[in-house]
């Protein structure tokens, strides 16, 4: 497999559809090591699907996904699980296990995979919780945390096994400005201090452009633009401008495709 040594994940000519609904026609992208790469696009475009394809939870119809030179979808189940120990995903809902407390949530993967004694696990968990500012909440149940704190706890869990890459699924969706600011800071810090590769999938334009090193914009089943945030802001692609500027109408129409308005009103019941 030919892979650029600077990139951790590469997607080659991938196509994916659910039933008859085509989600990706033919996309290729590469995610550089140690950088924050953002994937943006309007909602419903299948950004989460892209993360699941990278993580091997879904299988593409065509093309391939390389993780550090290994084709994710040609792996056996045990090879895939070995790869996943090097990856981590922060789910949109946090996906904390609701029947155990925050401490046990963070300790979960460590207890399962690391084989470390319990007192070392305790140190690691407290360190991870300290990093996200939730050491004081270790004994709380997930339901006792606010949405933003749940996501931070999930982030602590995601970094517990010290992965090489973290896939963030809509980390900013539904957050108040303060938790949003906290998350932006955490993502950037984790990437810089631990030299983590981060993939952020989001439609929050300003936050993403603020932290990303490189941005891909998805629309219409393909990548319509990519570049550094500065390049994207300067680009004059109308579809891109509409998305970044947040204009209601433009190349992405306000109306769902429909028959002629006047005709439909006048036609009456069939």
């Amino acid at each position, binding site marked *: 497999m030919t892979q650029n040594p600077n990139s951790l994940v590469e997607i080659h000519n991938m196509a994916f559809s659910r039933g008859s609904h085509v989600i990706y026609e033919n996309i290729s992208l590469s995610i550089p090591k140690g950088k924050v790469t953002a994937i943006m696009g309007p909602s419903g475009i299948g950004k989460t699907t892209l993360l699941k394809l990278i993580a091997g939870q879904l299988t593409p119809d065509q093309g391939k996904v390389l993780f550090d030179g290994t084709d994710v979808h040609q792996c056996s189940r045990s090879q895939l699980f070995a790869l996943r120990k090097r990856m981590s*995903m922060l789910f949109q809902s946090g*996906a904390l296990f609701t029947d155990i407390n925050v401490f046990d949530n963070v300790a979960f993967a460590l207890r*399962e*995979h690391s084989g470390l004694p319990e007192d070392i696990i305790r140190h690691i968990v407290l360190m991870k919780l300290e990093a996200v500012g939730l050491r004081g909440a270790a004994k709380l149940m997930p339901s006792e945390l606010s949405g933003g704190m749940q996501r931070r706890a999930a982030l602590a869990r995601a970094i517990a096994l010290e992965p090489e890459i973290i896939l963030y699924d809509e980390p900013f969706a539904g957050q108040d400005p303060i938790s949003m600011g906290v998350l932006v800071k955490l993502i950037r810090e984790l990437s810089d201090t631990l030299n983590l590769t981060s993939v952020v999938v989001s439609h929050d334009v300003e936050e993403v452009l603020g932290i990303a090193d490189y941005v891909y914009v998805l629309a219409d089943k393909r990548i319509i633009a990519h570049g550094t945030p500065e390049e994207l802001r300067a680009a004059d692609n109308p579809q891109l401008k509409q998305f970044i500027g947040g204009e209601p109408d433009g190349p992405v129409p306000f109306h769902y495709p429909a028959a002629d308005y006047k005709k439909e009103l006048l036609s009456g019941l069939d």
Partner: protein
Amino acid sequence: MGLINQIAKLGRGAIDLVVGLGQAGMMLWGAIAHRPRFRKGTPLLIRQLYVIGVQSMVIILVSGLFIGMVLALQGYNILVGFGTEESLGPMVALSLLRELGPVVSALLFAGRAGSALTAELGLMKSTEQLSSLEMMAIDPLRQIIAPRFWAGVISLPLLALMFTAIGIYGGHIVGVEWKGIDSGAFWSILQSSVEWRQDIVNCIIKSSLFAVVVTWIALYRGYHVVPNPEGISRATTQTVVQSSLAVLTLDFLLTAMMFGS
């Protein structure tokens, strides 16, 4: 065209059924075809035994007691007409051991534990907890499905035995304490007509098979739920309906095999 559509619909139904059976089989195989891990698996199993078994105990014991008492009362009224009210013991014991014990406890189990299993798994799926396990390189079939399956398979036969035992004592309360049948006659006729191999072993076989079917359906419905509120409520209903029908159908087949000839 109408006919063609009907045929197409039938075909689609059949294909869906085969796909569903295949998925359910794969799920079960993935969950139980592992070397058991005693150190990590046992706490998970104990927790599920608590949720599935212990929490179903109250409903099983109360229902068993009342069904035994009702059975005895109705049976007494009929038998006393023939002057054979001493046969109340075998009537109550045999109906409970052969049919009511395994079947009613399986139906109650489907309503109490099966629906809860489906709803729990559905919520875990819709809050991405199952995906999140996969991302941690932990097999959810092994971590989530397997302990629940074994807990169900262990719990239901025990619950059915408790149901039957307390039902027979319910019959004793009505027959002996209330209606005044001689206690010695009640028990001796009962004991001479109940047979270990024919009645008790078959009771255990029946309820073990019901346990597999009910737990399997509940887990399959939960694991393959459409992850939204409507999907979860549909899946929960389907669990109860399908496992009840499966239990009753299977019961007929088993009864025909065990007692038919």
